């Protein structure tokens, strides 16, 4: 098999897929030219991510990592969500083939882009360094 059972499970039954109409923040990374795009919607209450949804254009690993990333940040404080790494997402999925690792960078980037959007919308000061490496 190309993918682990966990990857296939998240690909076949993605968690938190869809749109949040009245989202408090939206982040999107990637471009259609290179093949993968992920968009993340956040609902935030008292600095806690109470709901998260995503939409992804991409391969099996892009959809599975999107799903897993949203699971890992759901119900967590923003400060904790900011620490999400693509390695953590990949580990939670029991790994990805080497040549598919680039597809997983997207999930970390989209989550960070959404958090940055939340800070911007609410005029919350932040360290730009924390958002320096958002994948695109």
């Amino acid at each position, binding site marked *: 098999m190309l993918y682990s059972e966990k990857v*296939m499970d998240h*690909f*076949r039954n*993605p968690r938190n*897929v*869809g*749109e949040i109409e009245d989202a408090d923040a939206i982040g*999107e990374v990637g471009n*259609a*030219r*290179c*093949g*993968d*795009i*992920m*968009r993340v919607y956040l609902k935030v209450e008292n600095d806690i991510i109470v709901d998260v949804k995503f*939409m*992804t*254009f*991409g*391969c*099996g*690993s*892009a*959809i599975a990592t999107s799903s897993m990333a949203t699971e890992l940040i759901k119900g967590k404080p923003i400060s904790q969500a900011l620490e999400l790494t693509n390695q953590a997402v990949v580990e939670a999925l029991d790994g990805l083939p080497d*040549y*598919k690792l*680039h*597809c997983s960078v997207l999930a970390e980037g989209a989550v960070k882009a959404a958090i940055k959007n939340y800070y911007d919308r609410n005029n919350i000061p932040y360290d730009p360094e924390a958002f320096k490496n958002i994948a695109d």
Partner: protein
Amino acid sequence: MIYLDNASTTKVSDKVVEVMVPYYSEVYANCSSLHEFGQKAKEKLEDCRQRVARVFNAKSREIYFTSGGTESDNQAILSAAQIGIRQEKKHIITTKFEHHAVLNVLNKLKQQGFTITYLDVNSNGIIKIEDLEKAITPQTVLVSIMFANNEIGTIQPIKEIGRVCKEHKVLFHTDAVQAVGNEKIDVDELGIDMLSLSAHKFHGPKGVGVLYARSNVPLTQFIVGGSQENNRRAGTENLPGIVGMVAALEAAYKDLDTKNQRLKKMRDKLFDELSKIPHSAINGDREHRLCSNFSMCFEGIEGESLLLLLSDKGICASSGSACTSGSLAPSHVLLSIGRPHEVAHGSLRLTLSRYTTEDEINKVIEAVPQVVAYLRSISPVWDELEKGVRKHVI
């Protein structure tokens, strides 16, 4: 399982397996051995050579057995390059959408000082013969143009290419790996000097093929060793494989017209029904293509996820998306016919064989729109297309 990936490889027919077995367990002698047993194997080998020659209206001594399409392409092009070096003609003409077995050999020749012209294949996936005529120079030694494309199935004007090459005294090689078994080929009538074919594309075994080379074309021995294949291709002949290939080849041409009519009817039904999916497009000319080839792009989705979901429904298909190839770029074939990157990612190739049934086609016609609709429902690209933020391309 519904197997619609026959351009990748095909099922070896039961009949082919049956005729191969005795050449493993009974007539297993080396064709080069002098004893009677060896001579029996040698006789069979030469019988096979003659039968291949007959299919293409060639001569026995113009048929060289190889390990398949890749080796035949390599040897044809490298042999022509040797001729080019001797005659100080270091220009080769090909197309933008050849198989990598051709393109990557030409890349190596480029490093050795050859100039390569890549002809445009236009939006229909077919070269313009005027472009070829314009590209030929006194330095041109070889034109290598595939008979039918492996991704979109479009068929090139082989007879005209052969005529132009003859007029300009340029060698003409064609990679006919996808065409053999699907199209009638007479090397004299079409003016072909070298032709590559591979048994596993027409219900023969893997790892065996043919290079046809006209008797006046000197081949370079590229796999070096013993004196097999008239000193042009060393290594003990794969007699069981060759026997299987010949049986498959003859079977393919026995009922060619009726088989093609049947496949075309099913393939056209796929085109008609799946074209109803909004913002979809057929890749390559709809008529000048192999009867077995279906290829379309669907906007707003990505090919690998499409393939995985079809696979869950028991359908084996393929795609030219980047993520299925392991590289970041989508298929060079789809880019060569002018599909933008984002559209090329959403491609689907279905390739039929004589074993394909109407019932299977009906199941695919039901499954594909469902999967496309689902993937679009979770796609931010489709969302932008629908909201008008992004412009539809197809």
